[in-house]
């Protein structure tokens, strides 16, 4: 509810409200169009679409991949988080950084490495993995860091006295862990599961290259090969339902859990567990994911890049240029949209501003293929001059990566003392003027970090670019994808390598802006 005082402030806030509302519309409107387009089907077609046996198969595939990845990431992340926080191993913080790096590898590059480097005649001594197992391995290796980071923070924040109390009451170490420690890790596990789950549902590159038909891949196939747009729209709606279900489930579980959580306690440090003769095994288990997710792929990439046909260099420069031409404006736009939203959330907290922020995150959680499809329908119907143009791609990328920019900007804004702005206001500035004179110069760092994250995200992005790029507009990511699909591995190598290097930059920016370790 806006009080009279709030209403009085509105004119000064307009420069913030308008972009904020536009942003909300850019996410919500296309999704409405998607639903409209899906409901356009005549009843008979609709019955056919909804009762297709294929739908069941897709649900089964998507769910089994989701559960498989959640299980495997837990098996990887939980022991690693324990080892890097609660034991006496050397170099824990270095390992923590190394173990976070795979986060930056896009799924399609992982799939490319598996396809190009394994099997008979491959340079890695591994059997060819594809289909379910290949997708499971790649997705788990690139998403476990989300879980790892959350669990690490949870382990560090645990109150050791609870555990010690359990031990003095005669519980063995294992029982103490299961009954006392594990319940306290659940919130971190659940939020990690949500992020990993959204990734798996949204993933298109990995499953399509490794030929495992989940909803995302099916949407692409129906849209591009079978050319069934109404069915594609329905599949996108199904996928949105899945995503929504995941968000709801996580919210419900977390709410129930947070009631049962204890405070932080005394802030006492837990005594590190001495591993003794198990230390070598512990080091090995820390190295294994790094080896599988970083060292082997990089080795394969460099090796394959050395076979790259020279005459294609022109294409590499072109793709680099195209990627930059889409990602630079998109990231500037994303930060430009993040600023007013962050400002409203931090300075004028209310249900309305929080709802706006939710909308901004929604653009990020909507599976990109569903989002791209929604924008295609929307632009064809109401903005035909935009359809198939670069500005549309830039716009949609900005809407999608807005959330990446929002975090750092909001964080920086919280650190700007409100009193500075108020001082400017008492000197007669409007809120907008006060913001630009006083606050913005102090936000610079957060805005750069947010922009950098959005930029790198936009360069690596595949599904939106694939569906929305203008004709003949191939970027680094679409080149990797199309060459891999044609089994032209040597040709794809430098493009994949360029993406991998950018990903390394991504981690650098992340560490610089968050100072995690």
């Amino acid at each position: 509810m806006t009080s009279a005082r709030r209403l009085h402030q509105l004119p000064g806030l307009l420069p913030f409200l308008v972009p904020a509302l536009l942003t909300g519309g850019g996410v919500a409107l296309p999704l409405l169009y998607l639903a409209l387009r899906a409901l356009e089907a005549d009843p008979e077609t609709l019955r056919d679409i909804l009762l297709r046996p294929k739908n069941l198969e897709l649900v089964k595939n998507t769910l089994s991949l989701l559960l498989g990845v959640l299980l495997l990431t837990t098996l990887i992340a939980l022991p690693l988080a324990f080892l890097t926080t609660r034991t006496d191993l050397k170099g824990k913080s270095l390992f923590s950084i190394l173990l976070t790096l795979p986060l930056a590898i896009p799924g399609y590059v992982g799939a490319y490495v598996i396809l190009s480097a394994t099997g008979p005649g491959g340079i890695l001594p591994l059997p060819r993995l594809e289909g379910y197992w290949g997708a499971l391995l790649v997705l788990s290796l690139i998403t476990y860091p989300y879980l790892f980071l959350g669990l690490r923070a949870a382990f560090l924040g645990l109150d050791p006295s609870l555990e010690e109390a359990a031990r003095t009451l005669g519980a063995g170490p294992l029982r103490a862990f299961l009954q006392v420690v594990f319940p306290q890790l659940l919130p971190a596990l659940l939020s990690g599961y949500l992020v990993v789950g959204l990734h798996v549902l949204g993933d298109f590159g990995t499953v399509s290259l490794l030929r495992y038909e989940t909803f995302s891949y099916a949407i692409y196939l129906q849209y591009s090969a079978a050319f069934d747009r109404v069915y594609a729209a329905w599949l996108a709606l199904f996928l949105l339902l899945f995503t929504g279900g995941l968000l709801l489930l996580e919210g419900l579980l977390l709410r129930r859990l947070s009631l049962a959580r204890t405070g932080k306690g005394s802030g006492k440090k837990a005594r590190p567990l001495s591993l003794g003769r198990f230390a070598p095994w512990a080091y090995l288990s820390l190295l294994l994911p790094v080896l599988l997710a970083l060292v082997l792929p990089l080795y394969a990439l460099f090796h394959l890049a050395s076979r790259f046909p020279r005459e294609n260099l022109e294409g590499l420069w072109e793709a680099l240029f195209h990627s930059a031409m889409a990602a630079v404006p998109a990231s500037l736009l994303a930060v430009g949209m993040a600023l007013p939203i962050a400002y409203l959330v931090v300075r004028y907290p209310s249900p309305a501003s929080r709802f706006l922020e939710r909308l901004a995150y929604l653009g990020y959680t909507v599976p990109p293929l569903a989002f791209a499809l929604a924008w295609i329908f929307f632009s064809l119907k109401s903005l035909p001059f935009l359809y198939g143009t670069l500005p549309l791609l830039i716009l949609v990328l900005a809407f999608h990566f807005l959330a990446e920019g929002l975090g750092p900007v909001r964080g920086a804004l919280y650190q700007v003392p409100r009193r500075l702005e108020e001082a400017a206001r008492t000197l007669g500035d409007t809120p907008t003027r006060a913001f630009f004179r006083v606050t913005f110069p102090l936000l610079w760092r957060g805005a750069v970090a947010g922009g950098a994250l959005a930029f790198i995200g936009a360069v690596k992005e595949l599904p939106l670019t694939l569906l929305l790029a203008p004709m003949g507009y191939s970027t680094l990511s679409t080149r990797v994808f199309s060459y891999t699909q044609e089994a032209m591995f040597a040709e794809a190598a430098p493009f994949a390598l360029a993406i991998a290097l950018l990903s390394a930059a991504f981690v650098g920016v992340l560490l610089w802006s968050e100072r995690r370790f």
Partner: protein
Amino acid sequence: MQLRRFLTLIGLGALGLAFAQQQTLTLYSGRGQSLVEPLVRQFQAETGIRVQVRYGTDAQILAALQEEGSRSPADVFWANTAGALGQAASKGLLRPLGDTLLRQPLAFAPTSKAWVPVTLRLRVLAYNPQKLRPEELPASILDLPRFAQEKGLAGRVGWTPTYSSFQDMVAGMIALYGEVRTREWLSAMKALNPKGYASNPAMLDAIRAGEIDLGSTNHYYVVRFRRAGYNLGLHYFKDGDPGNLALVTGAGILKTSKNLVAANRFLTYLLSPKGQQYFAGTVGEYPLVKGVVADAHLLPLEEALAKSPKLDFEKLPLDQALRLLRELGIL
């Protein structure tokens, strides 16, 4: 401060460039980028005409052309299949072409006169010669499911249901044997639990990597893998079998085209000795114009034509084939 101003300028410049795109010859290609790009580059170098290419599947491009309607920027539609060109012609999307162009190819000139055939390819069976002997392979593609069952190859057969030539082959089957038999064949194939690939090279690479042992593909893909030094088997079924269906690729000019001169030059270039030599040499397809040096991997053109059933390629029942594939959940 300086840095900030600089970054803002770069951003504005990028936005400005994005909005200013110049007009050139626009090609919608159902043929793959890896195959089209070198030729387009040659054409640009020789004529100075800039070509913009939009890649997609034939079905995708047909639908895009219809969605875009009179707003379409396309000048030339270069398709993977005669069926797609036939559809484009019957929907009135293509301009009739002059006789100078239509007289050049040796065969397959369409009755609609709205497009010109450019190259020819045959469907073949690719297999792993270390696993299978040529003499045991079936004489008809209709017997492929039974053969695979007997050899215990369930789960080791590949196919490319999203690829236009495969869909044309299914349409050819319907034209020859009717929908009932085609449905039986597809169901029997499905029962083998085949692996579906997004492209032919990916499927052949899977044969190379030992994922699968055989799959129906287009002849030039096998040729290309053999040239790269991989040992792949190539099997023709008996003469007239739909498993050897000959398929023409071709190109037409769109009614919406505003660059007729450039579009005509591009089509002429595709049929020129240089263009045709590129298809026969680099790509490994059959040229359709006289005076091109055939490749050692290819059969003489007459022999290749004798292998295929005689059908009207412009009128293959593609819609029926797609409906059938969807109905069976293959697409």
